[in-house]
């Protein structure tokens, strides 16, 4: 619970963001499963193929993957090496955590900024992802996801700093 000590307005906002992320993730995964399954039924049993299904599925993979990555950030479940932190006592582990949080936060902000520049570029050239959908819409998940991941690492950073200062109980 990284948002426990936030002012109530912010805490509510974070909760709203979390719900929206979850709803979008569930909706898109459901759409992916149904679309992929119906495509097989149509192709093998009715000899039909709907144009654009393949591209839509590939795009759904990108969105689902990055929404999943955002969810992983929330719970600190990104792939990492647990070589040192596991053996440290609580306060020291909290300070190490805040260092890696800060690092991740900065990297994600840079990535979000560069993704945004990419979006602006492809908006100017009016590139299309497939048929009708402009690339800048299709790729908008990138800056969005990096901002959301940065937000999570900011919350983790606050949490870990408070633990380091002894204002919150470190986890066992």
């Amino acid at each position: 619970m990284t948002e426990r000590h936030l002012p109530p307005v912010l805490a509510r906002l974070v909760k709203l963001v979390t719900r929206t992320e979850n709803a979008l993730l569930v909706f898109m995964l459901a759409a992916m499963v149904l679309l992929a399954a119906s495509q097989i039924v149509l192709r093998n049993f009715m000899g039909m193929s709907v144009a654009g299904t393949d591209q839509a599925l590939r795009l759904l993979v990108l969105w689902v993957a990055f929404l999943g990555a955002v969810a992983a950030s929330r719970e600190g479940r990104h792939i990492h090496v647990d070589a040192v932190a596991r053996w440290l006592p609580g306060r020291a582990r909290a300070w190490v955590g805040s260092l890696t949080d800060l690092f991740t936060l900065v990297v994600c902000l840079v990535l979000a900024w560069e993704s945004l520049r990419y979006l602006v570029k492809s908006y100017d050239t009016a590139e299309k992802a497939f048929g009708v959908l402009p690339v800048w819409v299709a790729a908008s998940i990138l800056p969005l996801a990096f901002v959301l991941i940065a937000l999570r690492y900011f919350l983790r950073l606050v949490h870990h700093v408070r633990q380091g200062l002894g204002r919150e109980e470190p986890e066992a």
Partner: protein
Amino acid sequence: MMILAGIALIVLVLLGAPLFAIIAAGVLLNFALEGTDLTVIPIEIYSLAEMPVLLAIPLFTFAGYLLAESGAPQRLVRITNAFFGWMPGGLAAVALAMCAMFTAFTGASGVTIVALGGLLYPALRQAGYPERYSLGLVTTSGSIGLLFAPSLPLILYGVVAQQLNIGHPVAIPDLFLAGILPGLLIVVMLSLYGLWQRRGQPAAHIPFSGRAALASLRDAAWELPLPVVVLGGIYSGYFAVSEAAAVTAIYVFIVEVLVHREIRFAALPRLMRESMVLVGAILIVLGMSLASTNYLLDAEIPTRLFNYIRSHVHSALGFLLLLNLFLLALGMMLDIFSALVIMVPLILPIALKYDIHPVHLGIVFLANMEIAYLMPPMGMNLFIAMYRFDRPMLEIFRAVLPFVCILALAVLVITYWPGLSLALIKH
């Protein structure tokens, strides 16, 4: 300057910073110093949406989470017990085969230990297997099966290898075929060890009962066709890999949620999110490494590494031995997915220059990772078993040690006998 930055990044890795951020930082720094426009990084990441096979990863993962959450593991163990419980060494052999299949379908090795291991352990003990052997088997169970279709690491190796444009096609169905014999070798060797463990003991602890066997079959009637349909579909070429994944996902959904009703609708959003956390964590590292691979190839790093290694290691066999040791050490630190995504772009071009077949390399890579999961101090399976069975790490490792030795032997055979991996591939 670059060296300092490199050291800082390595320190951050060891302190537990997420790998995707580390790779991203490395790529950002290198491109910034070269004066390359940094928007190439989002462009590379966006190319994740141009890889059709990737669709298989979320679909198989979701199906695996559904299977693990449902009563399917209980039904599998029940069949195993009813049919093979009476046979000397039979239970262990079938338990191994069952775990291999379950790992292949669920993709994550921890799932097998938690879902199947917890059920198999009492069954093995009841059938008269020694405690230490049983504990070793269920801990090892998590990693055998990585070589069988449709395991995620195999698919991921294919995806990464195809990105490298190495001139050799690395088709995923070929990888699936290549994994069969080496995978069977591992299962057979471990089964023989099980038979040897039971030597000199009375054969039947559980008498065979036709009625119980039939009931267990009827119980699992819905799940049993799944491997047949999926594997048959892939190997016959009827389904593409991503289609097989879609069939699996929708079939498992219908069986476990609509027919057996073991997973309530209310639990679905949580399961969907849980499974996609894994997918997101893997694919974000893959996305970053697409960008870094481009940089590595531009800077001709694999070629330079090759020239360096070439001056010390002259034969392909020597290189493979070195690779075995390196992969073991790597696997103790990294999980299999990031190890694949990060190291394959470096190792594959070098291996090609030693005339090692890319499909064979993939099998060797994964076989090594199976052992690495079981090595202290970092092996993931040891930790999972430690929590699941509530035993101290040392005891778990002692139980696993003979299994590690057998696996090491199998890996040596797989490494130095390329024919075993390549025999089934059509040339």
